[in-house]
């Protein structure tokens, strides 16, 4: 199933949208769904925290201005503390230098202002996901595209290895024969 998809498409199956404006959220959700992404919409920190922990999104799109007194900056700070490998794109109406600085400091991986070109948003999602993945895996482990990454079989725990460039694809464990996806995170 994964063979027909690029690595990045596999990486960002599920996108968590954190947006307080229902119309904005609905538009974004529809557009992303049309582009083969699964989405989950949350409106504030409480909902976003639950969704982030329970459903383990592959990507987060986050507005800085949220209801209930907790900003998107704090939401991002929380998410990055919990799992830094999940890319966070801040999509916000705030176009201030200080906001970009703060976003960078709390771990935001990309910053886009509204109104936005949705096609550019999709391109940005792909670029950011690739970049974060590279940063958290290939670069950290000093593994080039053709080199090997090692990971355990989710079925029997056997130590498996595969080419870095095959991330996101599926193989059968030689020991237990269970299908295992080469980890993308």
């Amino acid at each position, binding site marked *: 199933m994964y063979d027909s998809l690029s690595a990045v498409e596999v990486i960002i199956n599920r996108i968590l949208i954190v947006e307080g404006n229902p119309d904005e959220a609905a538009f974004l959700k529809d557009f992303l769904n049309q582009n083969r992404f699964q989405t989950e919409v949350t409106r504030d920190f409480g909902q976003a925290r639950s969704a982030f922990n329970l459903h383990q999104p592959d990507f987060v799109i986050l507005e*800085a201005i949220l209801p209930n007194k907790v900003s998107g900056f704090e939401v991002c700070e929380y998410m990055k503390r919990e799992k830094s490998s999940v890319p966070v794109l801040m999509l916000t109406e705030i176009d201030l230098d200080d906001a970009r600085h703060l976003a960078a400091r709390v771990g935001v991986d990309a910053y886009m202002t509204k109104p*936005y*070109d949705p096609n550019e948003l999709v391109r940005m999602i792909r*670029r950011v996901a690739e970049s974060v993945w590279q940063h958290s895996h290939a670069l950290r482990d000093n593994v080039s595209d053709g080199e090997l990454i090692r990971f355990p079989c989710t079925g029997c725990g056997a130590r498996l290895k595969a080419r870095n460039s095959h991330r996101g694809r599926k193989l059968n464990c030689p020991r237990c024969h269970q299908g295992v996806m080469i980890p993308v995170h």
Partner: protein
Amino acid sequence: MASQPLILEIQTGKHKGRRIRLTDAEMTIGRGENSSIRIASAEVSRDHCKLIAENGRVRVVDLKSRNGTFIDGRPVDGEKILNPGGLLTVGPLTFLLLGKEEPNPLLQDPGVRLKGKKGSDDNLSDDDIAAWLSDTDLPTALAHELTDTSIIKRADLETQSNEPLVPEPAIEESRLSLNEFGLPKQPVSSDRRNQFKSVAEEAQEIIRRHYESLGEKPQS
């Protein structure tokens, strides 16, 4: 064919006064991807209306939009002529059609000026113009006016005209040097960080200044 360029001037947002040149060919406004001027608003239909520039005026054809197209506050039933000085309203947006009746409007706008045929910016490309409209100024201006507008993407601008619209860079506030992901290349100084006790406090201050720049009160 129109002998002079027809220009719609945005009437909303902090960049009020920015302009979109209309071509002689048909242009469409709508939420759909094929629209010449795209507006992602729930109030705007996918194919909302069509603009046809002719003889110094614009023929506006409503494409059976759900919420209607309005000229000077009156609904367009089928099609209607937009004369210079008239207001076109599409969903939440209002544009003024500039024309001969305007008292030299292009010289009044600090953000835009027209270059003559032999001006030094003759080599300004269409991409330059489109980028100016699509990336920051126009969308920002419109976004501030609307709560449910996500996009004003770009207008296909007149390419054959000898008088391209040229932005005046001087009005732009100083911008950071950003990386490909829209984040600052340089880290913020520690002085700035130390002004705040927490991320929450700094965020609230940023949000307050954002609303202040819009002339609005922060939402609760």
